[in-house]
């Protein structure tokens, strides 16, 4: 879709009424008063969302916090292939792979840390994942925390989301 440039015609000189300014001020006051009265009368139409109590429903394709998917048995679906870590432009994913104790699974992530302070929410990790183990569909932003350590999400936190 090409960007459309709209030329707005603007008068070169203000008319006398405009240059006196008073009438324009009254018009402006009218605009603000209209807003005021409308919002006074119908408070439910105010677009403000009262955040902690009400949360905006994010669009379906919103890229939010990561989560790791589980297999039917509860083990992480992740096979520690490092594709996400390779694709990540911010280098925020740290994986340590290991031999799984479950004989049906060969390789699994011993550690899977996402540094949310570094993450740029680009979604490349989700694109890269060959087993659909990582998703960004939690529909929510990174929670604020008071230390940097708390913002390094470990595998347990990511599996819970």
């Amino acid at each position, binding site marked *: 879709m090409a960007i459309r440039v709209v030329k707005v015609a603007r008068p070169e000189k203000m008319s006398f009424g405009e240059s006196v300014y008073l009438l324009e*001020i009254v018009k*402006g*006051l009218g605009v603000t008063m209209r*807003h005021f009265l409308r*919002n006074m009368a119908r*408070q439910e139409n*105010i*677009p*403000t969302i009262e955040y902690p109590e009400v949360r905006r429903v994010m669009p379906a394709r919103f890229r939010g916090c990561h989560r790791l998917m589980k297999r039917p048995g509860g083990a992480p679906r992740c096979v520690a292939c490092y594709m996400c870590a390779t694709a990540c432009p911010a280098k925020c994913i740290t994986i340590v792979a290991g031999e799984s104790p479950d004989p049906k699974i060969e390789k699994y992530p011993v550690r899977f840390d996402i540094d949310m302070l570094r993450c740029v929410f680009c979604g490349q990790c989700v694109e890269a994942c060959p087993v659909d183990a990582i998703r960004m569909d939690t529909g929510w932003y990174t929670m604020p925390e008071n230390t940097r350590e708390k913002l390094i999400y470990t595998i347990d936190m990511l599996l819970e989301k």
Partner: protein
Amino acid sequence: MSPLFDLAVAVARIAVFISFCLGLVVILTWVERKGAAYIQDRRGPNRARILGLTLGGIFHPLADAIKFLFKEDFIPDGAHRLFYQMAPMFALAPAIMTMAVIPFGPPVTIAGHQIPLQIADLNVGILYLFAISGMTVYGVVLAGWASNSKYPLLGGLRSSAQMLSYEVSMGLSVVGILMVFQSVQLSEIARGQGELLFGILPKWGVFVQPLGFILFLTALYAEANRTPFDLPEGESELVAGYHTEYGSFKFSMFMMAEYIHMVVGSAVLVTLFFGGWQFPYLADAGFAFPGGVSFAVPAWAVLSLRIGSFVVKTVFFCWVYVWVRWTIPRFRYDQVMRLGWKVMLPLALINIFVTGLVLLLIDKGI
């Protein structure tokens, strides 16, 4: 009557009027925030609650007050300690003092003693008003200089230039009123506006001096450092202007000064241009509408209608301050100066000249 009675009455008047003003200030801060919110399609303050009640955020001024009281009262390094501390007082004191000459109502007679509903009915009322309100600039300039910081200094300088410029127009814009009502005493001016113009229109200042009203209103906003003339604290350029370095209760004193200015400014505007305590077509005995229709009203009702009309008018103009603030953007500094000196001053002078001419013609009976 005894001097003790006079004293008691004086103290009572001061107490009542000051608490009226300060109460209005408290409510105004809430009105400003809530009004701004509704004008901008927001909800505004609605979080502070007492016993689970928010009542549209009406407790926020209380929360603010408590917050300001308990914040650390600091003095920045390098500030002039004495002047830094004096500045907020210099800002607040004149604002409160100007209240003294505002007539809240006609004089009442209690126990055979006539009591003016006015703290001090000075015969130089308007001169006093200008003298005292002219001192406000000291608080701002002092704050700007004593903070020893560049943004406050710039704010203070802007403020001094702006206040001086608009003081001139403000003074000249009311000269027309003084000429019409032939008094500088505010109680006299208020009483003078009880008459009718051409037999139908109340002889309010705004009707006899429409240009003067517009000039005065504009100058009033400039004097109170309110948008569109809030350059001394223009946050987009100067962080917070002259009170950048202030915190805690000292900051709240600046804020209070600003809001008291709004209240007193509105009261003066009402007194000069909107009939003060006059209720349209209400004489001492009762209503007397043009066309001969009249009916009597008891004296206490007349009094309360008059006081009520003053309060309502004042509150309305306080709201206009808020309304204007969220409607008109801030001027550029050169625009402020051009408006002050090249538009308002000539217009004020023309207004005086035309008023004088008209009065002369009326006097000559033409």
